Each structure stands twice: as C-alpha cells, then as structure tokens.
C-alpha cells in the first residue's frame, strides 16, 4: 500500500549531473589552457628564433665608403629550418629602398626600436607569414643610414606542432573526463548509500513499529532522522490517545443511554395512560436510534483508525464466518429468521486485519437479519474466486427498492425501504471502508428471486 510521493529528481542523479557538469567544465578548461599555453609557447619559441635570425643579419651589417655591406650569415637562415620546414623571405632596406631580398615584403607599420625585434603577421604571396624586423644605423661616408632587416617565415610547422599539441590536449581532456565520470559515479553511489540504507532500515519495519531510529546516521541526516523520530513519537502518542478516546467515548455515550432506556422502560411499565405510553415508546425508539448511531459512529471511527494502523494476520475465513454467524444466532432467533452458514472449503485464508473483517461481516449479517421479515432465510457463505475470497450474505428480505450500492454506502444514507427499522445509515459505509482498506471491493445487489445479496471481496493470501 504505497502512497504516491511527490517526487523530484533524485539526489544521486542530481549529484551525478552536477559532478559531470563540473567534469566537462574542468576537462574543457584543461584542454583550453593546455592549448593556449602550448600555442603561445610554440609561438614564442618560433618568434625568438625568427628574432635571433633577424638580429644575426643586422649584426653583420657594415658601413664603409661604398655603401652598406650586407653579409647574411648562413646560420641566420639555417636556424629558421631548425623547427620545421617553413618558407623564408627577407628584405633589407635603407630608408624605403631595398638593398637585397624580396622587395614586395611589407615593411613594419610601427616604428622600430633598434635591435629589439618587432614581430607582426603579414600576408606575402598569398601566404600568411610571421615577420620580425629590426633597425640599425650604419655609417656610410660619415652619414648614419637607417638600415632595416625584415625576416619573414611561413608558419606551417608551427601549425603542425600546435595541431599535434592540441590533439594531445584533447586526449588529455577526454581522459580526464572519462576518469572523472568513473569517480563521479562512485562518489554519487557512496554519498547516497547512507540514505538508501536508512530507507531500507525504516522500510523493513512493521506498520506498528513506531520506535525511534537508533542506528548511526551521517551528520547531514541527523536533522531529518531527529524530525522523523519526533514525528513518530508524536504519532504514537496521538494514536494511543485516539484509541483510548474512542473506547472512552463509546463508554460515555452508551452508559447514560442505557440508563435512560432502562428508566424509560420502567416508566412505560408503570404508566397506564395510553398517550403517555405512546410518548415513552417513541422516546425509547429515539434512544435506540441514538444508541445505534453512537455505536455505529464509534465503530466507523474505529474502522477508519484501524485501516491506517492495519495489523495483518493470516486468517482462516471459514472459521471467522462460522464464529460471527454463530454470534448472531440469538438475534436471528428472536426475529424468527433462519440464519445458516453454507458449507464451504476450509482452506480459504487471507492476510488481513481481523477487527476490520469482523466489523464488515457483522454489519452485513446485521442488515440481512434486520431487513428480512419473520420466517425469512439468511445464508452466509465464503468461496474463493479469481484470487479473491468472496464473503456473501444473502437474505430473502425486502430487497433494495432499486437503490444502488453507491447511494447506500454513503455516510448516513439509508434506503427508502427502511420503514420502521432502526438504523443510522453507517453500516455499509463501514463495509466499504473495510473493502477499500483490505484492497478488496464490495457489491450489494437485489436478488432476482427477491431479497438482497451483499458480497465482500478480499484478496486471497498469496502463497
């Protein structure tokens, strides 16, 4: 009998999602940072080589009488080939005039700062190149001429290196992510474990077990368990109070009514006046109705209380039926109605609360006797059918006058057929409550041959 709980996303899944999100984030960050670091490291390395080559050329510049002598050192260009095989372009200018090299190579747009290389990106012959430029003044005929040296290099090998580094960074990120996923799964399981073991321990308890939870729980769960324990102790107090209250209330209502009825009967016997006797009789009737109502209301309350506090046991229905039937024999006899228990199998057992079953059956038999005239017949039987035990009470009484079960089972609903029969209209309400509580169902129909057939279905004990 599980209640549907308003369920939100599970802690474990939420934890997992959050951990995975963090893992994705960290893996991404790892990839990006490795990439950027690698990128800039490669670029810096390439730049410094390019700068060194440019400076090497500039340092070999000589002045003189005839003009600027350029003597490009072999190593200047061969060092550029040390990282990869990139194309090299160079240009040496005095002012804007090219002394040697590739005269379409773009000049730097910013002013140069001596032998400190200025690096810039450029396009040359449709190729993206990285250029370094330095400036040096050279004395020619006593005049200082500004000589600029520009060396440019394609960056194919840098891209290759960066691509391979990026690939490694990506692998690193993926590897990190995979490990993080594994750890996250493990963590999520471990974190939720105390919760699930607590749930298991509480779930294993019987319905009557309202003892406080004693087992050690993680600190985070202490407030929850404390609240649960407090709630359970309040509940058990409230429950026992309710039980006592129902019993006391029954006593407190029945006793004065019984006294009242006894005195009214004495008064009836002592009074000769027909009018007064009439009044006393209707008073007694009212007292009976009140007593009946009080009794049924208390029974109803007890049944409702019981259905929340079910205490199931294995019940042999044949014995139960025989016992209850037997207990109604005196009232049947008094009314002049024949009450019989039909023969039945002896292995019809159910797992149910005895008090509930008895209350239901008593009300059915009570109705059958009550609404059946003198010399009528009431038959009680139990059979098993399709996983259910069917408790049936048939009578040869007045029938239902076409009323439906839905109406008759309503609280304080009585049929149009009651005439002067005393009743409160709670009997079938109790039966229906019992059927609901025991996961069974209740039917009441008029028999074709006259009379009524009421049946209570209770699930059979599963073996």
């Amino acid at each position, binding site marked *: 009998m599980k209640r549907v709980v308003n369920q939100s996303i599970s802690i474990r899944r939420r934890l997992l999602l959050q951990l995975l999100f963090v893992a994705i984030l960290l893996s991404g960050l790892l990839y990006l940072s490795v990439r950027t670091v690698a990128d800039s490291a490669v670029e810096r390395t390439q730049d410094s080589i390019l700068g060194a080559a440019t400076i090497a050329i500039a340092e070999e510049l000589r002045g003189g009488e005839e003009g600027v*002598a*350029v003597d*490009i050192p072999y190593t*200047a*260009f*061969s060092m550029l080939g040390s990282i990869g095989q990139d*194309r090299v372009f160079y240009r040496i200018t005095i002012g804007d005039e090219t002394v040697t090299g590739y*005269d379409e190579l773009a000049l730097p747009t910013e002013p140069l700062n001596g032998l400190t290389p200025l690096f810039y990106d450029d396009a040359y*012959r449709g190729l993206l190149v990285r250029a370094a430029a330095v400036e040096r003044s050279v004395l020619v005929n006593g005049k200082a001429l500004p000589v600029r040296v520009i060396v440019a290099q394609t960056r194919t090998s840098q891209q290759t290196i960066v691509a391979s580094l990026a690939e490694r960074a990506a692998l690193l990120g993926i590897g990190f992510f995979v490990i993080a996923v594994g750890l996250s799964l493990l963590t999520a399981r471990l974190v939720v474990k105390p919760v699930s073991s607590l749930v298991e321990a509480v779930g294993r308890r019987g319905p009557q077990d309202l003892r406080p939870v004693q087992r050690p729980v993680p600190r985070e769960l202490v407030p929850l368990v404390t609240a649960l324990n407090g709630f359970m102790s309040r509940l058990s107090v409230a429950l026992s109070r309710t039980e006592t209250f129902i019993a006391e209330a029954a006593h407190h209502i029945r006793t004065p009514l019984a006294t009242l009825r006894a005195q009214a009967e004495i008064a009836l016997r002592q009074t000769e006046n027909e009018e007064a006797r009439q009044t006393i009789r209707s008073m007694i009737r009212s007292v009976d109705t009140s007593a009946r109502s009080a009794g049924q209301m208390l029974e109803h309350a007890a049944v409702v209380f019981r259905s929340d506090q079910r205490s199931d046991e294995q019940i042999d229905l044949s014995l139960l039926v025989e016992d209850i039937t037997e207990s109604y024999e005196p009232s049947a006899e008094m009314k002049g109605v024949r009450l019989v228990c039909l023969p039945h199998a002896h292995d019809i057992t159910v797992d149910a609360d005895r008090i509930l079953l008895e209350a239901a059956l008593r009300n059915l038999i009570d109705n059958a006797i009550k609404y059946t005239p003198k010399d009528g017949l009431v038959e009680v039987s139990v059979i098993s059918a399709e996983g259910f035990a069917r408790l049936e009470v048939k009578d040869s009484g007045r029938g239902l006058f076409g009323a439906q079960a839905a109406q008759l089972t309503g609280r304080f609903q009585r049929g149009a057929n009651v005439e002067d029969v005393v009743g409160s209209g709670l009997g079938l309400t109790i039966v229906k409550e019992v059927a609901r509580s025991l996961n069974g169902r209740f039917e009441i129909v008029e028999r074709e041959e006259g009379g009524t057939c009421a049946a209570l279905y209770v699930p059979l004990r599963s073996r």
Partner: protein
Amino acid sequence: MRGALCSIAITLIASTTLAFDIEQQQLFQGQGDETLSILSTTDIGIFRPVIAAFQEVRPDISVDYVVASTQEVYRAIYEEGAQFDLAVSSAMDLQMKLANDGLAQGHSSAQTDALPDWARWQDQLFAFAQEPVVTVVSQAAFEGRQTPATRSDLIRHLRDDPETFRGRIGTYDPRKSGAGYLFATQDARQSDTYWRLSEVMGGLEPKLYEASSAMLNAVESGELAIAYNVLGSYALARLDQKGAATIIELEDFTNILLRTALIPANAENPSGGAAFLDFLLSATGQRVLEENSGLPRINAGALAAQSYLRPIRLDTGLLVFVDPLKKQQFLREWSAAVVQ
C-alpha cells in the same frame, strides 16, 4: 617588377623560343599521347637508363628530356616561366630558392614519405641521389708521396713542393658553374681551411673549369695533378677502368651533394612529373639510378657509416648564398684568393 616578369614570360611563350641555353634535348617517344617534359642538369647519357626503365612501367608516356646548366635551369623556371613537368638539378641552393619562392608545387606519395627528413624539403623538393664531392689526384704526380687525406695534407703537399703542382691544379670556377659555387660556399661554410687552401691554390696558377668531366679528362691526360671538388659519380664512372687517377674523399669533411627534383608550379602535366618523380624514388628507380646511371641512391646508412660525410642540408640556409649581394661578396673574396 612581377608584372614585368609576367609580360616577359608571356612574350617568350608567344614567340615559342626558349630564352635559355639548352645543351642537349631528346624526345623518348612513348606509345601514347601523354608527354612529360623534364628540364635537367644531368646528361642524357646518364639518365637514359632511368628513362628507359620508367617507360617500361609507363610505356604510354613520352619523355622530352632537356639538359641545361644549373644556372639556366634555375633561370628558365624562375625568370622565363618555361613550362616543364619536372626540374632536376644538382644546384641544391637554386632548387631551394625555387621551392621557397613558391615556384614548385606540392606532391606527396608513399615514395616521397619514405624519404629521410634530410632528403626532402616540405612536400616540394626531393633528393633522389646522393654523391660525394671528391678530390681526384693523378697517380703519376703523387708517385712516392702519400696521398693526402685531409685538406691540411693537401695544403702541406702544395706548400712543400709548389713547382710540381704549379699550373696543375684544377677546380670549378664558381663564377661560371652553379655546382662549383655550391661546393665553394659549402666548403667555406664548413671550415676556414677552405680559404687557406684557396689561397695556396691561388698562388699556384690553378686552372678553372665549368664541368667535372673536363677536369677529369685533364687528370687522366696528366695535365692536372689535382682536381679539387669533383662530382663523385662522374669520377667513379670515368676512372674506374683506368688506374691513372685516385679518387679521394677528404676526411676532414666531404660534402654530399643531393640531386633534387621538383614539380614546377606551372607544370602542364604535373601528374606525369609526379609519376616520374615517384619512379625515381621507388626501389626500382633507385636501383637503376645506382647500377646503370652511376648515381648513388639515397642511403642514410651509408652516411652514418662515415662520420666525415656531410650531406648538404636541404634547408633555408641554402638561400643565403643565392642572395645576390652575398654572392657578389663571396665571389669577390674567392677571386681575391684564387685568381690573384
């Protein structure tokens, strides 16, 4: 300037005359319509077996083989816009300049990928043969002397007995020969001994040549006692049979020249050029080159075995000596030392 170049190139193509000097040309007729034109510094005689082997594999392709000097090969591609499907040259610096300046197109295949790193530059320039730059001495002249093992030995011989060697030393004229210029600059780069040797040679009235073959002839005939910086493949091919000369790989260092090929950017039939290049680099092509053409195949193991063998690296350093100012300066210094 580029615009001017282009218009020159266009007029040249329009007039259909080649504005560079051709030494030899031969069409190796194939069975199909496809023609592959190769501009090369290597003599037809040396390349013929390779072309024949290629046409066995690809009989459909005709090969138009044009031979020119290293300078002319470079000029044809760089300045004249001549259209060839493969440019083969022993002037590594000029080939490097062509590739660096975007006159080659990329090609990559299983064969090019298999090349060692030092034997290619990007996916543009590929070495298909490696040969030492050697010194050849006449045995007659060194009768009774120890053959020199290093440049210092050589200098000592020249100093000790100048009269024997006066007028009998031959070497490339770097002003006229691209290969000679490459050898001289690489020697100068490797060691200062080169300048000492040059000065000593300069004092002994050296003879200057434009080609290895002429130098070898002179050694054979006894006219020269020493030929300094000769292409090893030529020397081996010529001197194997007769015992008149000795080939020396100098042990202070011996440069290894790489013969390289590139597919020009403006090739009409680049796939033909690529097919020939792949064949050159394939096992069959390399074997034919070594066994039938006398051009040693690319072999990293052979280099590792001798520490004094220094392959001239295919890197942008080679561009330095192509710079006109640098070249002027180098040749001025060289002339001062050798021509005196």
